[in-house]
Structures are given as C-alpha cells and as structure tokens.
C-alpha cells in the first residue's frame, strides 16, 4: 500500500472513531442529570418562563430527534450553541484551539526533543552521574501532580520573582494599545506561555527520556553498532547516526499511546495557569453543564489526539524505511 493510501485509510479510521466518540458523548451527556436551565435560576423567574427557556435550547424535543439534530449539525460543521456563552460553539473552539495547540504541541516537541537527547546521552554513558541526576529529576516531575508543580511554579516565578504573568495568554497592556507591533504581541504571548509550557515539558520529558534510554541500550547491542565501531567511525557519529535513529522508533510508538493519557496534564496545566485553551474550557463547561461546549471541546481534544497518532505513524514510517504500508 502506498503512503497516500495509508494516510487516506487512517483518516477514514479517525473519522469513524470520531463518530463513535460522538455517539458515546451524546449518550453520556443526555444521561447527565443536570439541567442547563438550572444555571439561569432567578428568584423572580416563573416556571412558565423556564419552560420557554428549555424550549429555546431544544431540550423539550424527543431524544432521537436531538441525536439526529446533533449528527446533522456535526456534518455541517455546526457544533451547536453554548448554553453558557450563548454563542456558536464553533466560534469558541476556534478561539481556544490555537492557544491549546501552541501549548500542547510546544510542550510535546520540546519535551520529546529534550527526552530523546538526554536519553541518548545517558544510555551512551551508562551509569554516569548524568544518568542518575536526570533520571531522578525527570522521575520526580513525572510523578508529581502537575497542578501542584504549577502552583509552586506560579508562586515562585510569578509571585516572588515576578518573571512571568500570573495567567492568561494576552496581557491587556500590550494588546489594548493600538501602537503595539506584532513583535511586541508575540513577545507578550511568549511571556505568558513560558511558565505553563515549562511545567508541562518537565512533566512529559521523563517518559520519553526513559523509553529512549531503554531502546538505545538495546540498539547498542546490535551487530551493526559493533560493525560501525570496528570501522573506526567517530563515537558521535555512531551514537547519533547509527544508534539514535533506530532507537527512536519505540519512542515514537510510545508517543502514540502516551498522547491520549498525557493530555490530562495539559488540561490540568491550563486550569492551573488560567490558560484560555480547550483544556480549561472542557473543565469549565463540564462544571456548568454546558453540554454542547463540553462535547465539542472533548471532540476537539480527541481529534488532536487522533491527529497526533497519525503524525506518530507517519513519523514512524519516515524513521523506519523498512515499513511498507
């Protein structure tokens, strides 16, 4: 099978998975006992008025109708309106998605590059102080509750030293000033994103580092490494060209599996740092019973995970020319 065919097949699979997830979501949210109108309670609102509000949200229609309505809307790219924001969910997701992608992909790229580099080095110099130090350091952050690390980081770096803002993505001073240029705005975003990004990176890198280390150790036993050494190639070349490239394969595989589990870290980080992304939105929407918004944010998070899986697979094929689809 050609690469294109494979990708098309995978996209079809993603699509199918999404529909299944959507159905699960629908059932789940209709099972949810809460009533969105509960949040519009007003001591002076009469039951008739509440009924009017319920009708406005389509909550008076039969369930199958609501399901078909929901699917139809999905295929039209319409995810409904948020109960809480009273705006199209699509707009809200569109607003939050870039922030989330910036934070999550940033954290993944940095932590995996860091993890792979460190893993490579500590496997090469097995038993060194660096191995002990970085393993201990990485594992500590790996095992810490991420929100707790976030709170401590917030306290030290934002409060005590004032290096970074306390939350959000855009500072009002810069963004409300029409004379602020692109550079200044970019710099402002960078300042806001640094702390959550660092916390997320710290939590992630140990995983990739340890997998890389293990895989590198296995690779170093292979015959072709011996051959390379026998040829008298420089150590760095053997390590980086011969061993590391092959050792990266399991890292990519574990990435595909780990990504679904690790988005939780992203969600908690966003919540801790008041970062206006999908993760915070799903928490808020769930706690306010905003069905359409929670569903859509969940679907988009799921989509991000599925795309990350696809990317991992393509990367795998790129790294391992033996794979034929």
């Amino acid at each position, binding site marked *: 099978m050609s690469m294109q065919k494979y990708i098309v097949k995978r996209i079809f699979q993603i699509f199918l998975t999404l529909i299944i997830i959507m159905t699960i979501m629908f059932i789940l949210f209709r099972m949810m006992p809460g009533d969105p109108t509960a949040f519009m309670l007003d001591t002076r609102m009469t039951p008739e008025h509440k009924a009017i509000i319920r009708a406005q949200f389509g909550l008076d229609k039969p369930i199958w109708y609501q399901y078909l309505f929901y699917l139809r809307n999905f295929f039209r790219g319409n995810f409904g309106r948020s109960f809480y924001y*009273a705006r199209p969910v699509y707009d809200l997701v569109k*607003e939050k998605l870039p922030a989330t992608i910036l934070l999550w992909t940033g954290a993944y790229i940095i932590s995996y590059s860091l993890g792979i580099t460190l893993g490579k080095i500590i496997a090469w110099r097995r038993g060194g102080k660096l191995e002990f130090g970085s393993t201990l350091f990485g594992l500590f952050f790996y095992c810490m509750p991420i929100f707790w690390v976030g709170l401590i980081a917030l306290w030290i770096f934002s409060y005590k030293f004032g290096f970074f803002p*306390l939350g959000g993505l855009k500072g009002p001073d810069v963004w409300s000033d029409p004379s602020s240029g692109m550079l200044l705005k970019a710099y*402002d975003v960078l300042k806001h994103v640094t702390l959550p990004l660092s916390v997320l990176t710290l939590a992630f890198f140990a995983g990739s580092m340890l997998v890389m280390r293990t895989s590198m150790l296995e690779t170093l036993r292979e015959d072709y490494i011996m051959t390379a050494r026998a040829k008298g190639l420089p150590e760095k070349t053997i390590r980086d060209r011969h061993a590391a490239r092959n050792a990266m394969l399991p890292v990519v595989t574990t990435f595909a599996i780990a990504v679904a589990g690790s988005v939780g870290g992203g969600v908690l980080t966003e919540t801790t740092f008041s970062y206006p992304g999908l993760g915070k939105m799903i928490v808020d929407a769930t706690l306010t019973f905003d069905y359409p918004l929670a569903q859509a944010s969940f679907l988009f998070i799921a989509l991000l995970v599925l795309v990350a899986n696809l990317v991992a697979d393509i990367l795998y094929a790129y790294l391992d020319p033996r794979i034929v689809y």
Partner: protein
Amino acid sequence: MKRLFIVAVVAILVASMVPVHSQGGVTFNVGMQDEPKTMNPFQAQDVWDWHVLTYFYEGLVTYRPIDFKIVPNVALEVPEVSSDILDYTVKLRDDVYWSDGKPLTAHDYALFGNMVKEFQIGRYLSSWEFVETVEALDDYTLHFVLSECRVTFIEGTLMSLPIPSHIWEPKLAEFRAAENPTKAVQEYQPVEPDEILSCGPLIFMEWQRGSYVKSKKNPNYFDTGRTHVYDDGTQLVLGPYFDYIVYRIYDTTDAAILGLKKGEIDYIWWAIQPGYVSDLLADPNVTVTNNPENGMRYMAFNCAREPFSDVAFRQAVATLVDRDFIQERVLQNYGEALYSVVPPGNRQWYNTEVKKWGYGQPMTERVPEAVNILKQTGNYSWDVEPTVEEGVVVPGEGMKYKGEYIKPFVILTPPADYDPLRAMSGMLIQEWLKQIGLPVTAQPTAFGTIVQKAMGERDYDMFVLGWSLTIYPDYLRDFFHSSQIMEYGYNIPQYSNPEFDRLADDLVTCGPRGEKIQAAFRLQEYLANELPYIPLFAPAAVEAYRNDHFSGWFDELDGISDSIVYIKPVVTPEETPAPAAEEKEAEGDGPCLGTLFVVLAVIGGSTVYLKRRN
C-alpha cells in the same frame, strides 16, 4: 539539539526581565474570575456580564448605596403607588445622552419593556408580565398601564434598563422574521463600541475575549457629582474618578490574590475565601472587607414524604443542627448563623424575634430536647433511646415512626468544589442527626443533579442549597406559596399552608411599606416554626482591595463593589508623568529591543545548531 534549548531558555529568561510599559491616565484594574459572555443585555445572565454592563445603563429609579433607599435616577421622581391605581405616568430627565451623542428618551425604556414582552425574554418577564402596556407619550414621558399593582413595579419594572432604540429598532424586523425570534434576539452579539452604547458612568472600549474588557470614563455622564447624604453625616459623591477600567480575567482566586499583591489589579470583584485573609492582612497595601451577603444557605425537607412531612420531626432536626458550630468552624465567623429565611444583612426586612431552635445549646442539651419534641407527638419510638451519660451523648438506635423503622435517607449536598462550606455542613448535619438514631447519609452530588431532583422530579429527602436574594423579600411568597408546587416551581419543599398563602399574596401587592414589613415578619415567624427550610447560614462577602491606589471604599450589603464609581485615586493624576505619548515611546523601545534580541538569539542558535549537524 541541546544548544538550541539552552539558547531558547536563555532567551525566554531574558525576555521575562524586560518590563512592560503602561498607558497614560488613571486606570482602575479589577480582577474577574470569568470572562463576560455577552454584551447583549437580553442575553446577559451571569455576574461577569453585569460587572461590565451595569455601568452602561441607567434605570428610571435606583437604590442608593448603603441603605438601599429608592431614589429617582433618570425619572424625575419616584411615583407613589397603591394597589388600586393601575395607571402611572413617569417624567424623565432631558439631559441624558447615549455615548454616541443621541439623547436618551422614553422610547428607549418603552422599547425594552415591549421587547421583553414581545420576545418573551424569560429573565425579565416577571417585572413586565403585569404591565399591560408601556408607551412613550413624548420623548420624556412614559405611560404604564398595569393589570395589577405589584411591588415589583418599582423594584423591578422601573429599575429596568433602557436600550438605545436607534440601534435596536432597525434590527426588530430581522428578529421577528427569524425562525425563533426569542433566540434571534438573544443570539445577537454586539462586540464593537458603536453597537454597545452607554448612558451610564462608563463607556465600552474593547473586549479581548478570554483576557480582558476595557471601558473608559463617560465624560458626559449626567450624574457625575451627585451627592448622597446619609443620616450619620457621611456623604458620597458620584464619580467616576478614573479614566479607564480594565476588567482582567483571573481564573483562580490564587492568581487574583497574587495579582492584587503585585499591584496588577486594585480590586478582586468576587468574594474570596476566608483562608486568604491572614495572608492578605500581612500586606499593608491591601485591605480586606467583610460584609454580609444578601443570600442564605438552607437545608430543605421534602414535606410530601414521611416523616419529613411531620412538623415535629423538622423541629427536632432544627434543634440538632448546631448552627453556632457551623458559624464558628465552617465559616470561621465569616458569615452568620441563620434562623430566618431573610438574612440579617437585609436589616429592614429581617425579623430578629423568630424562634431559634437549639440556640446556644451544646449537643448534650440539644439531643434530649429533640427527643422530647419527638416523643410529645407519640409517633416516635426507639429500640435504644438516645441518652446523655456523663456529658457524652449515647446515640439512639432503631428509630421508629408510627411503629415502623425509619428508612435510610439521604441529604444531597453540593460538591466541595461548588461550595466547600455547604458540603462540609452537610457532612456535619449527617453526624448530628445520627445522634438521635436517624439513618442518614450526606451525599455530595453535582449541582445540576440536585436541582433536577429537587425542583424537577421532587425526588429527594433532604438537600442543602442556597439562594441569592433580592432586597424586597417577595421570595417569601415564591419559595413557600402552594401555587408554586409544580415541576420547576419554586416551592421545592412542597410546603402548603392556606393562611401562609393568604399572607404571602398580600406581601407582593402594592401598599405602604410598614404594612409589608409586618407581613414579612409574620411570614418569617410561620417559617421559623414550621421549618420547610432549615436556614443554615448567611454567607459573608469577604473582599480585598488595594488601599494605596484608590480610597473611598464603603461597605454595604453584598460587598463593596458599588463603591467603584465613588472611589478616588490616592495618587493624583498630576503626580504621574503627564505626557503619555512620550512615555509610551520611551518604554515601548525596551520590549521591542528585547523581542528583537530573542528572535536574533533563536535564529543564531538554530544556525549554529544546523551547521553543527551538517
């Protein structure tokens, strides 16, 4: 790879050191916990929307701060009302203008009322449903015809907001043509300053979703300089005294507290948890205020179920619920133990003389008293009767009602995240009720679930929730009138008492205030004896502001937020460097250079890295 990281990390650290410049003029920064959802007054529903919108609209009459006396605002005077007069004419001031320069007229008020009625805007209907017609006789005269005179005519209808008819009127045809007109009205999303007009003290500037909202002072505000003089001699002079207000979003109280201490914001516009107080008090620049809230937390019984239908049972439970303990421990004295449905903070309407079950008694006295109340009915018995031995309560076992064991029942409490105080109270109540042998468990349950079970299905035994209340206690009727026993009706405990109903109906019709207060007192007595709700506590609004930026804050029911248009900057504008433009330029360079440096460093680092690779 490694080099790239070091470069990036250094760049970020360097970038973080570079200061950010500030804008000219006096800015008042407030922290909000969530962003506003809409700037459309027909849709606006949560407090964050109204924190912004409330300064754009002026009602015909208004409550003046602190004592909540009704005073004229855009209307020239507060009309005299009586239950037999159904026809009212209100004269308006002619010197009020919208922020685009158009005058504010009677049409703007009439349009709002008529739109509420035409498009069935649920949240405003209760103020307008008894209004037969509202029309503008001329630009400055409004005419109301009522079907019945309710107190909410003044404390609702006349406090309603105006909308700029020159903006909204052209849209009406479009709304009416929509498939669902109500939805169409509510889904209209104004975001630009020329769509969001103001006739109030502040004018909308911009809204950066998820980050902040910015408004500026209305230089032509008709009411600036208005002075309220109080009996104790204090005076309040209406501002606003700042040039800009920025509403910043802090998702967590922690971040807001840090922001306050750093000086990023001057005021946190929501009630903070008492746990922060000790930390804040250590900062001389921060002041913490503690005001009663016009709200109450209560435990409700399902009066349609046995044994909760039994008044003696409810009285016994009320005796066991140690509200003093809750006040001291759970609330840490931020808030007050509550014995009436009207909170004490609403001084005019609060009846201090209601029966206070178990007040001031230790558990060793409460248990025998509760047992006594129950035994007097002759309906209750125990396998092992609860007793007090040597100062320790020996809990009862096998409690029976009318010869049958009482089945295990559940107190639904909100989850800790929604309100840790109520969750904690629920757990304590469970322990107390177990003392007389009641098989009870407190079950933390999602807020929506409680509402659905309690208000929708009426399928519950007991639950703990709370209300935010209005000044005028017409809720006494809504919460307990038998006509409200229906799905999603407000009489959740399904309490029914014809005498109470009659008195409650009386409360909501127009009439002399003295009579109404007497009625409210009587109603509170009924409720304190029959206890469909056991009032638990009235929460407190603990708030914090910076005292080194603005002064003139005052306390009132529900907190200090009404002060915002009265506070004055501590540092006079002359003292801050005046030429704003110059400063902007000077400081603007810093970050630009910093950014430039960052970009150069990143490019340089990557080049070095790539070269190494090759």
